[in-house]
C-alpha cells in the first residue's frame, strides 16, 4: 500500500503536465520504468496517458483523461502493475471466450507499453470456458493467470480453489465496482460475489433486452387489427400478458412469421423461465434451499412458457444464441429477448434483413401483491477472475482491474466482441451510442435495473441442465408441466444435499441480494 501511495505521489506532477523531459525520465524511473521504456512512452502518442494510466487510445479515453485521473481505477491498476512487475519479466496468459480477441485490441499492447507486462491470449470455445477452467482446477497448472468466465461458473471455480478471493484487492485498489463516476449498474455490480466475497470483477452487461420489430409494431394495419382483436393498443408491451398477446397476434398460420424467438433449448430455456417465475412472485428456492417450482406460481410460470411455445420459431427447441441472432435477422420473428450484442449483430446488413426495423425496449412489468416491477434476465455475464496458481497474481489482478475500469472498459465494449456496456458511464458515451443504438442507451439501464441473476451457486450448471431439459421436454414432448417440475425438484434436492445444504443456503442468501430490490420486495417467498 505504501508503495502505491509513493507511486501516486511521484506520478502527480506528470499528470499535471509540468515536467521537463529530464524530469519525466527521472519520474518514470521512480515509477519503476527504465529510461528506455520512458523513451518509448515519450515517443508514443499514447505515452502520457498510458504512463498515468489513462490511455488515450480512443476518443473515449482521450475525452475522459483529466487531472484527477490519478485517482481512478485504471491509474491505480497501472501503478499496481508496475509495482508488481519490478525487475521481473512478466507475461500474463488470459483464457478468454472465443470472440473476445478483438476486445483486447489495441489495449493489450498499450498495457504492455505502460507497464512492461506482456499479454498472451488463449481462446476457449464460448460454451466450453467452464469446462476448460475446471480442468485447470484439477491439473493445477499455472498456465493461465486470468480466466474470463461466465458468472454462473464463478461459485464452482471458487469452491474448486481455482480462482482467488479478490475481496482484499478490491478493497485496497478499488476497481470502482459500485463507486466513482461510472459505477457498474446495479444489481450487476454484485454479480462477481459468492458467499459475500468477491471472486470476480463483472465486465459485461449481459442483460436481456426485449427486441421488437418496429416496422410491424408501428404498421397502422397491424395496429387496427390488434385493437380489433384484443381491445388494446399495439405498443411496446407493458405487461407479460400484453407481450404474449402480441406474440400470438404476429404468429402467422403459414409459418412465414412467428411472434417470438425466445429460448426453449437445453442450456438456454432457463433464461426464459426465471423471469417468468419471478413475474409470478416466486424465488427459485426458499430459505432452506428447497425448490419452489411446484408451487402454484412455479407451475403457472412454466405453463405460460409452454403455452407460448407455439408462438415461437419452431427451431427454438434447439437454437442457441448464434442461431437466435440469425433467425431474427432473417425476418422470421416479431420479437426476441436477447443480449445487447443482438443489436450489434442485427444492425449489420451483412447479417440481417431487418436493419433499422427493430429496437430494444424495456422488459414487461409484472404485478405481485399490488407491487409492480419489471423483470428480465442477466445471463452469462463474462467476469474477470484471477488464478490461484498464477505466478504473478497481483499483476494479473491489476490487468483485470485496468480492463474493467470505467475508462478502459468504455473502449472494450465498443469492439465487436463479447462484452456489452455495464457501467453507468457507458450509456453516456458517443462511441457506444454509435456501436449500439440510441434506443439501447435509453433502455439498457432500465433493463439492467430489472435483471435477475442466473443460478449463480455451486453446481449452477447442474441445476441449469436439469431445469432446461425438463422445460424443453414440457414445451416439445408433451411432458406435463407438473411432472417436469417435480423431476427438476427431485434432482435439485439431490444436488443440494450432495453439495451441502448449509453451504448452498449461505450462497443462496447472497444470490437473493443480486435480485433487484423491487423484485425482492414483491416476492411471495
Amino acid at each position, binding site marked *: 500500500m505504501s508503495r502505491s501511495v509513493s507511486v501516486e505521489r511521484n506520478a502527480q506532477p506528470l499528470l499535471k503536465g509540468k515536467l521537463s523531459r529530464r524530469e519525466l525520465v527521472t519520474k518514470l524511473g521512480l515509477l519503476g520504468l527504465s529510461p528506455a521504456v520512458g523513451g518509448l512512452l515519450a515517443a508514443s502518442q499514447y505515452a502520457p496517458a498510458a504512463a498515468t494510466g489513462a490511455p488515450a487510445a480512443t476518443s473515449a479515453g482521450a475525452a475522459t483523461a483529466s487531472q484527477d485521473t490519478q485517482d481512478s481505477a485504471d491509474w491505480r491498476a497501472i501503478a499496481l502493475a508496475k509495482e508488481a512487475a519490478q525487475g521481473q519479466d512478466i507475461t500474463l496468459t488470459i483464457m478468454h471466450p472465443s470472440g473476445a480477441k478483438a476486445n483486447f485490441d489495441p489495449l493489450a499492447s498499450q498495457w504492455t507499453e505502460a507497464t512492461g507486462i506482456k499479454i498472451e491470449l488463449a481462446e476457449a470455445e464460448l460454451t466450453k470456458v467452464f*469446462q476448460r477452467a475446471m480442468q485447470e482446477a484439477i491439473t493445477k497448472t499455472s498456465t493461465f493467470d486470468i480466466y474470463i468466465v461466465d458468472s454462473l461458473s464463478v461459485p464452482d471455480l471458487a469452491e474448486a480453489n481455482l480462482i482467488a478471493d479478490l475481496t482484499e484487492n478490491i478493497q485496497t485498489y478499488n476497481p470502482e465496482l459500485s463507486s466513482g463516476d461510472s459505477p457498474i449498474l446495479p444489481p450487476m455490480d454484485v454479480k462477481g460475489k459468492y458467499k459475500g466475497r468477491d471472486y470476480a470483477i463483472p465486465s459485461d452487461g449481459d442483460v436481456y433486452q426485449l427486441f421488437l420489430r418496429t416496422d410491424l409494431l408501428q404498421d397502422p394495419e397491424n395496429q387496427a387489427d390488434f385493437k380489433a382483436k384484443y381491445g388494446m393498443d399495439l405498443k411496446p408491451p407493458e405487461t407479460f400478458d400484453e407481450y404474449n398477446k402480441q406474440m400470438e397476434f404476429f404468429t402467422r398460420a403459414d409459418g412465414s412469421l412467428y411472434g417470438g424467438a425466445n429460448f426453449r433449448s437445453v442450456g438456454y430455456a432457463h433464461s426464459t423461465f426465471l423471469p417468468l417465475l419471478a413475474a409470478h412472485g416466486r424465488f427459485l428456492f426458499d430459505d432452506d434451499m428447497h425448490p419452489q417450482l411446484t408451487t402454484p406460481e412455479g407451475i403457472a410460470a412454466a405453463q405460460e412458457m409452454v403455452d407460448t411455445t407455439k408462438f415461437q*420459431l*419452431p427451431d427454438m427447441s434447439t437454437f442457441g444464441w448464434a442461431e437466435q441472432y440469425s433467425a431474427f435477422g432473417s425476418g422470421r420473428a416479431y420479437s426476441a429477448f436477447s443480449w445487447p450484442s443482438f443489436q450489434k449483430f442485427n444492425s449489420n446488413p451483412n447479417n440481417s434483413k431487418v436493419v433499422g426495423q427493430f429496437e430494444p425496449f424495456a422488459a414487461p412489468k409484472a404485478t405481485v401483491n399490488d407491487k409492480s416491477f419489471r423483470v428480465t434476465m442477466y445471463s452469462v455475464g463474462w467476469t474477470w477472475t484471477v488464478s490461484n496458481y498464477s505466478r504473478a497474481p497481483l499483476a494479473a489482478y491489476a490487468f483485470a482491474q485496468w480492463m474493467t475500469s470505467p475508462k478502459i472498459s468504455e473502449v472494450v465494449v465498443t469492439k465487436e466482441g463479447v462484452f456489452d456496456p455495464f457501467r453507468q458511464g457507458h450509456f453516456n458515451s458517443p462511441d457506444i451510442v454509435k456501436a449500439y443504438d440510441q434506443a439501447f442507451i435509453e433502455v439498457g439501464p432500465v433493463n439492467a435495473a430489472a435483471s435477475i441473476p442466473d443460478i449463480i451457486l455451486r453446481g449452477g450448471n447442474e441445476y441449469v441442465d436439469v431445469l432446461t*431439459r425438463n422445460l424443453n421436454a414440457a414445451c*416439445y414432448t408433451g*411432458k406435463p408441466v407438473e411432472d417436469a417440475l417435480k423431476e427438476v425438484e427431485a434432482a435439485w434436492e439431490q444436488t443440494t444435499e*450432495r453439495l451441502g445444504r448449509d453451504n448452498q443456503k449461505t450462497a443462496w442468501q447472497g444470490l437473493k441480494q443480486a435480485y433487484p430490490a423491487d423484485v425482492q420486495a414483491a416476492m411471495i417467498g
Partner: protein
Amino acid sequence: VALLLIAPVQILLLTLTVFPFLLSIYVSLTGWQPQFGDWWQAEITFPKNYIDLLTADKRFLYAVARTLLISVVCLSLEFLLGLLLAVTLAGQIRGRKVLLSVLLTPMMMMPVVVGYTFFLLFQRQGPLSALFGWALGQPGQVDWLSTPSLALFGIVVTEVWHWTPLFMLILLSGLTSLPQNPIRAAMVLGASRWQIFWHIELPMLTPLIVVAFVIRGMEVIKLFDEVYVMTRGGPGTTTETISTYLQQVAFGDFRLGYAAAAATVVLIVTVVVIYQGLRPIRNRVTTERG
C-alpha cells in the same frame, strides 16, 4: 537382456494405459468432485455410485438403452447399404473410381461438421422439409429436431450417411480379394449370380463383416458429436446417448466420481458385447488351428 531392452517401452505403455485405467476405477469408487478438493482426498463411497447408476438413475439407463437402439438400427442400415454399394462397385460399372471417391467423402468429414450440416438440413424451414413438401405436393414444415421420434430418426440418418462408406470400403476390399476359383467353379456348374453371392461370397466375407461390425460398434456406442450438435440430447433427454450423458455429468456437472462409475459400467457392457461379437472369428481361428 531381452527383458531389459523392452522394459522402458513396457513401463511407458503401462504408465500411459494401465495407470489412467486404474485411476479411473479408483475414482469411480469415490464421490469426487473437484469442488470438494483433490481426488486423493475424496471419500470412498463404494458401491453407492454403481447402485445409483443401475437402480435409481433412469436418465443413465435410458441413455444406455437408447444408445443400444441407435447402434442396432445404424449398424443394420449401414451394413445393408454398405453391402449394396460394395457389390455394385465390385462389378464393372462406368465411373467406378469417381463414384468410389464420392461415396467415401462422408467418412472423411469430421463428425462435428456432419452434425452441423444435418442440423441445418433438418431445420423446420430447411431443405429436407422443402423436399418433403415438394414430394407430398404441399408446403412441408416438419419439426424434425423438436419431435422426439423424428429427432432420433434425424440422428440415425446422419449417422448412417456418415458411416455407411466404412462398411462399403471394408466389404468392397473383401469382395475384390475373394479367391476366384470357388466362384468360377460355381459359374461353371450353372449357379446364378444370386446363388454365388449368397452361398459363396457372403460366407467368405463373414470375418470381414464381423470386423466391420466390431469396429463400427465400438464407434457408434461412443456416438457424441452429431447428437450434441443437432439436439444436445433433446428434446428433454429423448435423444441423449451414453456419451452426451457422460459429457454432461463429467464436464457439465463435474461429478467425476459418478461419471467414472458410469464409464466403467459402459466399458464392461461394451467389452462383453464386443467379446460376444468376435466369437465367430475366434471359433473360426480355433477351428483352423485345430
